């Protein structure tokens, strides 16, 4: 009763860490069990709060990497070496430890299969996290919307979910993954090796005449360059949704 009356309000909850997945040397996924989790939509995030012994608190937002799955919520965290929160989450938090969080949060940078498409997703670095929740929702039985995902990384060893991306069967899944590596490329790489630009988007994104829904997430400079180029290519600004992670991408 009380809970129903308070729906919509955001309360801090205590989650249990049930699994950790190493994604790259700097990035780890944390699989959490949140007892009263109400479910979420791909693209949403949680706020995480750490409290020090002296009462000092630090809060950060982390995108949810997976579609709704009961009380399970997976976030993916990039370690920012001089950060206040991410080194603890990536290095210290162990299975069985508790973590305080609130969510789900976000009503704009969200997509679910019933929203339709075609869908174009552009990720810079760890900006892939909320977009991966969309891709996983789509592949996990979410309709037939055609999806193209463009992932920009500095080098192959910085690609999160790399194994999973490589296993996506485009013909079967209707989801196509295109990668660009801006600093170091895999041996024998014949694909893109530069930052995302208008010419690349002209090749990779659905044409503006298809009226695609576009989601762009990553460091601020990446997001603004991609969104600007999409508008120059004729995409409706209202069809382009953006989420900026700031200068560090985390």
């Amino acid at each position, binding site marked *: 009763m009380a809970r129903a009356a308070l729906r919509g*309000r955001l309360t801090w909850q205590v989650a249990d860490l049930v699994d950790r997945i190493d994604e790259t040397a700097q990035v780890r996924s944390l699989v959490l069990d949140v007892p009263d989790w109400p479910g979420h939509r791909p693209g949403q995030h949680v706020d995480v709060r750490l409290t020090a012994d002296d009462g000092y608190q630090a*809060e950060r*937002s982390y995108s949810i990497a997976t579609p709704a799955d009961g009380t399970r919520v997976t976030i993916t965290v990039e370690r920012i070496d001089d950060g206040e929160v991410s080194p603890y989450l990536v290095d210290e938090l162990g299975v069985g430890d508790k973590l305080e969080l609130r969510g789900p*949060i976000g*009503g704009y940078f969200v997509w679910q299969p019933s929203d339709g498409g075609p869908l174009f997703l552009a990720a810079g670095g760890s900006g892939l996290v909320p977009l991966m929740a969309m891709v996983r929702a789509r592949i996990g039985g979410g309709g037939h919307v055609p999806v193209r995902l463009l992932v920009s990384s500095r080098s192959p060893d910085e690609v999160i979910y790399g194994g999973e991306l490589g296993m996506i069967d485009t013909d079967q899944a209707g989801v196509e993954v295109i990668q660009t590596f801006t600093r170091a490329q895999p041996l024998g790489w014949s694909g893109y090796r530069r930052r995302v630009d208008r010419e690349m988007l002209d090749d990779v994104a659905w044409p503006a005449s298809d009226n695609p829904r576009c989601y762009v997430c990553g460091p*601020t400079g990446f997001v603004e360059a991609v969104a600007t180029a999409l508008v120059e290519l004729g995409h409706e600004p209202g069809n382009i949704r953006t*989420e900026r992670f700031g200068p560090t991408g985390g």
Partner: protein
Amino acid sequence: MPSDNHVDGNAMGGLLMDAFGREMTDARGCCASCGSEHVMAELIVYRSGPGDVLRCPSCSTVLMVATPLPSGPRIYFSRLLWLAPKERA
């Protein structure tokens, strides 16, 4: 020149939900300076100070400043003409 050290209104979702009791990143607002309308998620947000400064993406005018205080969130409205939460299904 645009700087790189800002984020956007998506990051304000938790604080705004705390203040308004509902999801607000898709709420629409109007800039009192230039008259352009944007959803909260599209606002440019500078987080380096004690308060988060939310600026109009069209003209950079400060629309709101949001501060989490021990007593709860406090939002200062400066040049936000109106704010309209999205109708829920």
